[in-house]
């Protein structure tokens, strides 16, 4: 990953000598910087994505309208070709899911790092929560991208 | 068993003087610093106004002029060879500080900015000259920080919060010190080839004082107890502008920027006492003038204080009256004197931009101290014999450049110039000599002394003794002195010393026992108060910071000489080393 970008500086910039002297030096560790920036950018994106999803599901519609049919109309049915509309919903939810999970995972990492100083404990929690979050995300992506799998009920969905 | 350490060079005290010495010594020998405070807590950080050097960045200036001002400021008691070194090396030393990173304020063309300060003048025009290099009104803070930073860079070994309580002086050579590690209460023996005392001043023997609680004269009093003399102890400077009742200092930089004194009648009374320099006359002159006004009933509301006025419109009015073309506004004053303005706002609850500030003289600076030669080597007697391996610099020492009265900004110059010379000399000395032997038992007397205080079960309370000492000193050994007053004070001090033998402290513990250390420090103050009063009593003239109402004139025939005093109270005098400048009447 690129570390500190090489600065562009004019000859008459008083800091020039310092830049030249500094160029060789680059932070060894950019992870936290990237994580920090990611939290802000993903947060901003989530304002739109998460709030619009919430609005859609809880204000325009409600949980009480949440039926399998409604789900099918968003994500389609496994094995059937999807319409453009379905692909739009799939993409929207995939992005939302991905960003929210990564944002949440990194947030959780920050919290665990703060409170669990005993390294094995911290890493234990980290591995556990990463596995859990990745597992749930992959499962979520499966239904998103493949559609509702009526077969998993063992019977046809008739309503 | 005490812990044992060995270093080529050991510096006691981490103020400007100590750090400068450590920095230079550490360039070539194994150096350590012990300090009872974290280095950045040293009182050098309180110095506000500036550090003088004839850089000539603002207007023509010469180090010779600086030297003359210093000698004149010192009422001709300064040793002039030392003054020459001070003023000549000041230029180089200030540049040195800049190279170390000190963030001086700058002129428009990028050079170090300078300002006017009391007693500093252009010798030809007799007008105040801009000589004090400054970083807002935090010059001392920046010096202290910069030197500490450089010491860290140079890997100087620090023993923070270690308090020296004894020195190992055997056969006229110093071989180390004994110190307490405050955190654990353990005794440590520091074995060294060269030791420097840079423990700062002792202004806490007065009540109204600009000095820190920690300034209790540990270094000078340990030296005294080791059989060494102290020099010129009667010369103590009272700074004219301390915040009323608290003593917190408002730098002379305020007057450098144009502030003036006014009395109850609204008069600029300094015009009467110092027609040329007026409010920028030297400190002893200003302090006495304030008290003369107070005695004449011109104190504010008849009380014992006057106003320092730095309201911009007033400053401009007086600039105009003086024919000075400068003008200031509130923004400028705030920028140049941010800290002292804040002090006034916080501690007095008034705004100096719109109201005059009540001030009174405050005990400030010891001109006297441990006598040294030009390389900061400590002198054994009035004949110039030296104590091998022992050095002193800073306020604890007396070179003597300040003579009878120190000029503003010259202390910081003293720290870095003689700190540096001392540091270099220590390294040189340490490289040539071997460690001299010390016994396994050297720390025993110090240990016994501390335990003596800890376990003493008398009835006297150290807090009470300190309070009484401060009151007597303020009353009789202050700006104005008389034979009767000094004799009374001496008797009181001796009485207090007797009572001190029967003190009792509450904290019998070992770790971080400030009760114990404060009681020990009180012992130092009592010792120094006694020799101060003795020296003052013997000097039957008025000179610089020492003003005898019964001998109001300077007496060059009998007293153009330095006082040396020992712990058994015997005294001797030695001549002042004169040079280009012959004593003249001192007018500002």
């Amino acid at each position, binding site marked *: 990953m690129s570390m500190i*970008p090489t600065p562009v500086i004019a000859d008459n910039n008083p800091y020039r000598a310092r830049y030249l002297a500094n160029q060789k030096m680059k932070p060894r560790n950019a992870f936290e910087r990237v994580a920090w920036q990611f939290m802000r950018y993903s947060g901003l994106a989530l304002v739109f994505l998460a709030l619009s999803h919430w609005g859609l599901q809880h204000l325009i519609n409600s949980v009480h309208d949440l039926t399998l049919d409604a789900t099918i109309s968003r994500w389609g049915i496994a094995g059937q070709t999807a319409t453009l509309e379905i692909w739009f919903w799939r993409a929207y939810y995939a992005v939302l899911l991905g960003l929210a999970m990564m944002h949440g995972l990194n947030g959780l990492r920050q919290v665990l790092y703060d409170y669990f100083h005993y390294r094995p404990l911290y890493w234990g929690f980290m591995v556990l929560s990463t596995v859990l979050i990745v597992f749930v995300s992959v499962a979520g992506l499966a239904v998103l991208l493949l559609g509702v799998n009526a077969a998993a009920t063992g019977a046809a969905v008739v309503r | 068993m005490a812990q044992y350490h060995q270093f080529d060079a050991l510096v006691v005290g981490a103020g400007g003087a100590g750090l400068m010495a450590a920095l230079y010594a550490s360039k070539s020998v194994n150096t350590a610093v012990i300090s009872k405070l974290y280095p950045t807590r040293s009182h050098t950080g309180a110095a506000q106004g500036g550090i003088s050097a004839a850089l000539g960045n603002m207007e023509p200036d010469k180090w010779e002029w600086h030297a003359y001002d210093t000698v004149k400021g010192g009422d001709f008691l300064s040793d002039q060879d030392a003054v020459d070194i001070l003023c000549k090396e000041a230029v180089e030393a200030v540049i040195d500080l800049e190279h170390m990173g000190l963030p001086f304020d700058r002129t428009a063309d990028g050079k170090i900015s300078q300002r006017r300060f009391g007693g500093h003048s252009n010798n030809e025009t007799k007008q105040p000259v801009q000589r004090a290099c400054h970083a807002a009104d935090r010059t001392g803070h920046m010096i202290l920080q910069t030197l500490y930073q450089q010491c860290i860079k140079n890997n100087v070994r620090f023993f923070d919060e270690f308090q020296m309580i004894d020195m190992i002086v055997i056969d006229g050579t110093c071989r180390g010190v004994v110190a307490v590690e405050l955190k654990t209460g353990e005794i440590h023996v520091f074995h060294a080839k060269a030791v420097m005392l840079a423990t700062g001043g002792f202004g806490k023997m007065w009540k109204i004082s600009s000095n820190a609680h920690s300034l209790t004269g540990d270094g000078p009093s340990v030296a005294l107890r080791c059989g060494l003399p102290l020099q010129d102890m009667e010369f103590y400077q009272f700074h004219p502008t301390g915040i009323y009742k608290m003593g917190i200092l408002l730098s002379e930089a305020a007057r450098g920027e144009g502030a003036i004194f006014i009395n109850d009648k609204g008069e600029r009374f300094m015009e009467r006492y110092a027609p040329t320099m007026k409010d920028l006359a030297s400190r002893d002159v200003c302090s006495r003038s304030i008290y003369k006004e107070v005695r004449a009933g011109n104190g504010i509301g008849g009380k014992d204080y006057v106003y320092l006025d730095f309201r911009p419109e007033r400053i401009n009015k007086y600039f105009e009256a003086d024919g000075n073309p400068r003008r200031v506004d509130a923004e400028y004053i705030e920028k140049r004197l941010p800290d002292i303005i804040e002090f006034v706002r916080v*501690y007095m609850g008034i705004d100096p931009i719109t109201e005059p500030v009540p001030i009174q003289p405050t005990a400030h600076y010891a001109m006297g101290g441990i006598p040294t030669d030009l390389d900061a080597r400590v002198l054994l007697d009035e004949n110039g014999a030296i104590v091998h391996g022992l050095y002193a610099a800073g306020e604890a020492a007396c070179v003597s450049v300040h003579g009878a009265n120190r000029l503003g900004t010259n202390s910081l110059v003293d720290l870095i110039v003689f700190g540096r010379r001392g540091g270099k000399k220590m390294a040189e000395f340490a490289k040539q000599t071997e460690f001299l032997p010390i016994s396994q038992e050297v720390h025993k007397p110090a240990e016994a002394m501390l335990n003596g205080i800890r376990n003493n079960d008398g009835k006297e309370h150290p807090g009470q003794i300190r309070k009484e000492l401060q009151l007597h000193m303020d009353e009789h050994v202050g700006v104005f002195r008389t034979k009767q007053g000094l004799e009374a004070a001496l008797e009181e001090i001796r009485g207090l010393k007797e009572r001190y033998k029967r003190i009792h402290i509450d904290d019998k513990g070992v770790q971080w026992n400030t009760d114990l250390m404060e009681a020990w420090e009180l012992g130092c103050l009592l010792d120094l108060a006694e020799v101060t009063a003795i020296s003052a009593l013997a000097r039957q003239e008025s000179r610089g910071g020492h003003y005898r109402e019964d001998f109001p004139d300077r007496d060059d025939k009998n007293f153009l000489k330095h006082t040396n005093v020992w712990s058994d109270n015997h005294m001797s005098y030695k001549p002042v080393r004169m040079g280009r400048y012959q004593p003249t009447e001192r007018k500002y």
Partner: protein
Amino acid sequence: MKVHFKIKRFNPEKDKKSYWGEYDVEAEESDRVLDALQTVKWEIDGTLNFRRSCAHGICGSDAMRINGRNSLACKLLIRDAVQGGKIVVEPILGLPVIKDLIVDMEPFFAHYRAVMPYLINDTEPGERERLQSPEERARFDDSTKCILCACCTTSCPSFWVRGDYVGPAAIVQAHRFIFDSRDQGAAKRLDVLGEPEGVWRCRTVFNCSEVCPRDIQVTQAIGEVKAALITGRID
């Protein structure tokens, strides 16, 4: 006026746990809290321990938690501190308590040293001063005021939970050099501050800025360092 002091006491030689010492002190409204503590020590109970030196807010010795918030005891007046006739004094948080109000400052200074708080410039400076314009000087003026009192660092939730965080004070010190036009060590310092225990652990809580007795814009300094790390530019 009479003020009731509640002071957190702990003596490592005697106590297993800290306890509250209670004292009634006669004090003027315009006295400093430090003056009242001195009165307790000098007149009521000599075993009370705290650090102090200058008594006017420039040495940074006496940071403590007064009525729940960090402050220098010598810079807070009784009239501003007292709440319902009472003042509660505790040691600053996040550093090990040694005795009463005295904490171990070593971890704090270790962080300070970690950011290389000294001018780095290996070029030959010449006979005279290095030049610096008043604007360049003003760029880092705010952070030169720091007195290393630790009020900020020990008010920071990120530091409390994990003392490895270099803390606002060290960042302010780094800022003082990073933005000094004479310095050439910015990249080395940014390297340290970019580490996991560096600036990124700041969560923009502002407790630090609020308590700084020197009115340093601490969070702003931290923000400028973050910006320098992100953009690679220091202007």
